[in-house]
């Protein structure tokens, strides 16, 4: 990757559901190490956009380029918009969903360990035969998963069933699962919604520390103060279209944004 290649480059992507555009002709670039917030009123197309990056939805048209890491460092930008979600995950794109999408009948630790699947190599046969290589890998994954749990403040929950976790902890568990994959690009879809004040602050501190480590993140959030504090740049969507992009200060003073987003929020 040269200095000019962004980690993620989206060009003119659109996606319609039943003839109605959820996202229309959106373009944006995210540089490596950047924290990008995506804001907008309900139905602006934020989650649809994220799902087109993670691969859970495919774009009707438009392109998505992503620059994966290679063994020797950083590779060339690849066009990934036709890749399946699991393939994109293996390239280092992780997503934390808005809803609690956890694996049932597993402990918190096991949920996080499954997250490491995106970067594991050993296959079915070595697992079935319990070869030494598989054993070593499993031990390393367990250690990583425990570290990820500790990071999101869930160390004490490690051996309890994920099904009994309160909502805030379920979200945190999803974050730990995503971190265990050691992503290069982390997508967070409204990670703070439904959290209590203390949990929001803990989440903000976690995002801040990840940012300082250089992790590239994209963040959907309603709380403008939360976003202003954490994001380098903000993209504003309204009715599927991008209406503004800039630093938090620029966005705060943007009249189109005030009209479309903030105006509606204060009216609500």
């Amino acid at each position, binding site marked *: 990757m040269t200095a000019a290649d962004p980690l993620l480059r989206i060009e003119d992507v659109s996606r319609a559901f039943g003839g109605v555009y959820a996202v229309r002709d959106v373009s944006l670039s995210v540089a490596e190490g950047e924290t990008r917030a995506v804001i907008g009123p309900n139905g602006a197309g934020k989650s649809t956009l994220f799902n087109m990056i*993670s*691969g*859970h939805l495919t774009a009707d048209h438009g392109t998505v380029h992503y620059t994966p890491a290679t063994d020797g460092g950083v590779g060339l930008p690849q066009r990934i918009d036709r890749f*399946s*979600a*699991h*393939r994109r*995950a*293996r390239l280092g794109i*992780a*997503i934390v*969903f808005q809803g609690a*999408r*956890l*694996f*049932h*009948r*597993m402990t918190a630790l*096991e949920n996080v*360990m*499954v*997250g*490491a*699947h*995106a*970067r594991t190599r050993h296959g*079915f046969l070595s*697992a*079935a035969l*319990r070869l030494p290589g*598989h054993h070593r*890998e*499993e031990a390393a*994954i367990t250690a990583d998963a425990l570290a990820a749990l500790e990071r999101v403040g869930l160390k004490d929950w490690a051996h309890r069933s994920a*099904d009994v976790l309160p909502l805030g902890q379920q979200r945190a568990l999803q974050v730990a*699962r995503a971190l265990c*994959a050691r992503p290069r690009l982390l997508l967070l879809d409204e990670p703070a919604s439904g959290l209590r004040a203390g949990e929001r602050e803990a989440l903000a501190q976690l995002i801040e520390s990840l940012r300082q480590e250089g992790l590239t993140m994209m963040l959907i959030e309603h709380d403008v103060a939360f976003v202003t504090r954490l994001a380098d740049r903000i993209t504003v969507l309204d009715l599927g279209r991008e209406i503004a992009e800039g630093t938090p200060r620029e966005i705060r003073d943007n009249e189109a944004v005030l009209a479309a987003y903030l105006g509606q929020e204060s009216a609500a």
Partner: protein
Amino acid sequence: MSDFLQYLISGLAVGCGFALLGSGLVTIHRVTRVVNFAQGMFAVVAGLTAGSLLSAGLPHGVAEVAAVLVAGATGLLVGIVAIGRRGTGPQSALIVTLGIGFLAYAGEILIWGEDPHSFAGLGGAVEIGGAHLQKQYFLVIGAAALGFTALGLFFTRSYLGKALGACASNPYAARAVGIDVTRMGLVAFTLGGMLGGVAGVLVTPLQSVSYHSDVLLITNGFAAAILGGLVRLGPALVGGLALGVAESMVAGYYEASYQSVVALALMLAVMVWRARRHTALYEEAT
């Protein structure tokens, strides 16, 4: 008393066959949420293949292992047709497996004809408490115990077993962590085919198998598996054993033709009971 022991052990052996067949159903359903109605066919194919290979001169052991591998390949094939295309839902896939099960009749009749086949298993018998017990019974029971232990350890202890389970629990999130859900489903179908095959080669020496034996096998295997909600192995084992023993007792003390009624009655009772918790179960699964 010797009659009772006779019926008990032979029932346990046949029940182990049902349980193994049920474990294949559980394995496939656990990963793909598909109820595989071609499961009985795997056992039939393996039983008939083993018989043919043995009469072609292959030694015991080799023939059975080869037959299990053939069943595994059949499982993979069924999986490719049933879930290989992206976007096939579990309900559609269920109908596809049912169709393949019937289609397989044609192939089986072409290769093996319509008559039932059998082959000699582990020869000899032992006398315990006046009961005449074939050694094959104990082979079946031992193999089932081994199979269930290995499968249980794989699903609960191994990391890959967890990844397989994640596919059924939340396919959406599974894809997000890099799991190729379709490929895992095919792995499950292959494994399910092999488990059905193991059941087939073990049970065929006890009761001869023909192309339509799959109906009896799937009825019993399903009745066993439904006890654990098609996701848990322990209840499937218990259910299989209970069915085998109950049917053996019914056949021994009353009338052999009543034995499949036992399976159907148990299956209905469990399904009615589970239906009351149905909504809760579905919510849990999504």
